[in-house]
């Protein structure tokens, strides 16, 4: 009888897990732990702490994966409203850290509401599009855009340009996947191109302008803001084809890299495992993203499709922006490399997204009649 019970238990735990996706995630996490050990100069404490982060994130993923899609959909609106309320609270009572008001002190824990909105905004927009039942009209896109812009404005004001842009992008993915006409998108592109110089002159803080200038020419400020980009490029470049070997990267082991265990962990990986390692890592990400796209393509409802697509593309965006920033083709923005960088919050957010994807994939695909 015992084998049967074990099988039952096993089934209970794996019923809503997508094994293919999980394998990819675990592989990336494993790589993350290996690189983290090297990036911290052989600190098992950091690795242990990251293991705990991963365990918590996996638990969150499992729980979310087990929630039926309909219930997730019903949570979209309350979550969004909660997020907005918290943002308002931050604007009024938030703590200032490093010159930005991003955190809310709830006595026991400090929360960063913008993190919640990374999930809540696409959910809310997808929920709105799903509610209309019929073919979408231009008015629906305007409403969706307003849903998107409300939190973005708050977050820009904190100021946290990086997070605001990421939410903006994840929301844009929802609109794009919902079928916004190419003509409108072309118009938007033109509008953005026109407004960029205006934004540059009036809408940006000095440090934000500096970051972009630094990206364009890191050597201009080699010991200041450009230092990170240059050192990171040196790390990647000196890694060569085969890399310097695990724990043998001089740039990372000798502290030339900024934030070697979080935002710049990829340069550590790149220095030690070279172009071969980079190709393998990119492939692994591609496989995970590919699997997610398949899940999105076969999703049963409009809500599920839009949410799955948006989460997938946002995940991709994280990977691309982080690697682009570390290798010097994008400005330095504080975005971690998903599943690899050290840190609990981003790990939970990412796996929560994958949980939703698994829920979409594994719950009965009801075709609405």
């Amino acid at each position, binding site marked *: 009888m015992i084998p049967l019970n074990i099988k039952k238990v096993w089934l209970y735990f794996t019923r809503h897990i997508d094994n293919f996706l999980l394998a990819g995630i675990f592989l990336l996490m494993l790589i993350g732990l290996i690189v983290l050990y090297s990036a911290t100069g052989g600190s098992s404490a950091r690795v242990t702490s990251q293991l705990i982060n991963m365990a918590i994130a996996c638990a969150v993923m499992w729980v979310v994966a087990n929630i039926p899609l309909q219930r997730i959909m019903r949570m979209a609106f309350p979550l969004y409203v909660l997020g907005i309320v918290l943002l308002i609270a931050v604007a009024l009572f938030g703590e200032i850290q490093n010159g930005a008001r991003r955190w809310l002190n709830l006595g026991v824990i400090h929360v960063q509401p913008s993190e919640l909105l990374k999930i809540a905004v696409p959910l809310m927009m997808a929920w709105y599009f799903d509610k209309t039942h*019929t*073919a979408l009209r231009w008015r629906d896109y305007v409403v969706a855009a307003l849903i998107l812009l409300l939190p973005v404005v708050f977050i820009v004001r904190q100021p946290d340009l990086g997070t605001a842009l990421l939410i903006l992008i994840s929301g844009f*993915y929802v609109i*794009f*996947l919902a*079928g916004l006409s190419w003509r409108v998108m072309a118009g938007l592109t033109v509008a953005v191109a026109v407004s960029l110089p205006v934004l540059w002159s009036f809408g940006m803080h000095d440090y934000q302008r500096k970051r972009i200038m630094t990206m364009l020419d890191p050597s201009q400020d080699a010991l200041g803001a450009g230092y990170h980009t240059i*050192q990171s*490029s*040196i*790390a*990647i*470049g*000196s*890694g*060569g*084809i085969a890399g310097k070997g695990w724990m043998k990267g*001089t*740039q990372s082991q*000798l*502290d*030339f890299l900024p934030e070697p265990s979080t935002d710049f962990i990829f340069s550590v990986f*790149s220095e030690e495992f*070279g*172009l071969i390692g*980079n*190709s393998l890592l*990119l492939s692994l*990400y*591609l496989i995970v*993203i*590919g699997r997610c*796209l398949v899940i*999105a*393509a076969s999703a049963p409802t*409009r809500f599920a*499709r839009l949410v799955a*697509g948006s989460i*997938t*593309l946002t995940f*991709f965006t994280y990977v*691309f922006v982080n*690697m*682009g920033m570390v*290798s*010097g*083709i994008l400005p330095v923005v504080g975005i971690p490399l998903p599943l690899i960088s050290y840190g609990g919050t981003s790990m939970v957010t990412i796996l929560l997204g994958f949980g939703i994807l698994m829920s979409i994939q594994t719950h009965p695909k009801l075709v609405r*009649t």
Partner: protein
Amino acid sequence: MNDTVELRDHIREIRYFRIRLIISAIVVVVLFGLLLGRFFYLQVSQAEHYTTLAEANRIAIQPLTPNRGIIFDRNGEILAQNYTAYTLEIVPDQVKDLDAAIDELATIIEITPEDRRRFNKLKRDNTKFKSLPIRSRLTDFEVARFAESQYRFPGMDIKAYPLRHYPKGELVSHVIGYIGRISDKDLEQLEADKRLKNYHGSTHIGRIGIEKSYESALHGQTGFEQVETDAVGRPVRTLSRVAPVAGSDLALSLDIGLQQAAVQAFGDYRGALVALDPSNGEILAFVSKPGFDPNLFVDGIDHLNWRLLNESIDRPLNNRALRGVYPPGSTFKPFMALAGLELGKRSLGYAFNDPGFFSLPGSSHRFRDWKPGGHGWVDLRKSLVISCDTYYYMLAHDLGITNIHDFIGQFGFGKETGIDIPGEAAGLLPSPEWKKRRFNQKWLPGDTISVGIGQGFNLSTPLQLTFAMMLLANDGKAYRPHFVKQQVDHYNNLVKDDFVEEVYRLNLKPEYLNYVRQALADVTRPGGTASRAGANTAYTFAGKTGTSQVINIKQGERYNASKIDERHRDHALFTAFAPVESPRIVLTVLVENGGSGGSTAAPIARKVLDYFFLGTMPEPAEKAG
């Protein structure tokens, strides 16, 4: 019907969605391709470039400063050595309120306003991340006191540095000189000499004296260490190492005991003494009094001490033996005598009746002898023993300035002796060409007459007089005067000991030389100008007294020491060698404002010779007047 439409819409929606997903997938692949291209560019095309940068990043060359050579006297007494000095340093960036922190620091360690001033200057000239000294030479007690409350002073630390120390201080300051912090000017000079590479990491360089002239021997060879550093520049481990080679030790010919005896013999007088070995030119004693404490200069002299030294009326920084130029006065006469004999203007048997003055033909101007009424019958021997001026007025007139200049120039007057410390003055042996050049004036017959007794335009250093006397004492062998006897490397291997150099040899008739030497021996005997100093000696010695005028005495006036301000009194001179038969020491004594050579300078020489031959250390002399 409605359902069908809705279903058809639904299928179309899914198709549209999937098209957009495919477009997204293409974008994903393209952008990943872009990343891969970037990685290829960095890791393949530019790999070499970035590898070089990474190496440059992590590898720093750190110089290893060699220990400076030690300087000994001829008997192994240490004259310059190194010791570890503790310096309190502050990294300004790590201290929040610098002034308050220094105030607090001053409660446990003495910080003078001068220390603060210097620190603030350093702070302005350096980045705030650099560790800068605020107090040097902490005592052991201060080090301990700071160490126990160091936690109160973040950003402050005690560093140990090798520092130069001159245990004999003032006694040999004008010989050894001192080292000082390398200045921008030094760096330029080192660069020009292509020696800069050897000074990476060095903080000090020889400024004057032996420390300067033997800088390259004393400094040693800087070593290098390749270290791997982290981003802040802290060394993590050593990759390779070329050990530094410590500087050579120098053994001088100087005898610190003789030096001490000389200083004590001077008592309160200012002046100079040079003693050397006539058989090889080795300097035995080299005094310029007063001296100064060279230790003050090692780490940069403070303002107050500098003013005290620089503005002192006694001019302690002036190396009188090396750079002080004085009219040689009567000490010039032995060389005039040799000139007269060698050039055939005088014979050993010649004598004349001295009227006490000399006048040029057709002139009423009288060049007076120091003794009114003259000395009676005077021959060459007597002219030296009693220092007859008239004899030399006439001799100068008979020789003519060109002969005097050319013959006496062979004894080293008017040019450097080539001694192995820098800054030597050349003195002046006048000639018509020189006067033309210098004043654009014609040489007058009267000019020659003053030159004959070592006055007029004549100027020489005590070192030059000693050099000239050496030639007289050793039959004309012109050895280059030098201090260093032996250069020995850090492992006690001999590097060099052939410092003796005979530059040229004068061909002088032994008959004439002996005659003059015997006459000079008589100077120290009863009847001679230095008879008092020469009384009851256990050895024989020969010498010549001299007086060098500080102010001109007008025609028709007499020199009266008691009427003249002390600083305007004549300088007393005495130059001698001993023993007469085979000289082992030649020395010159100059006593500033000492009056006459016989009464002031010769007794000092006697005391020094007594120490040299008998080992009796003189009591400090009483100052006359």
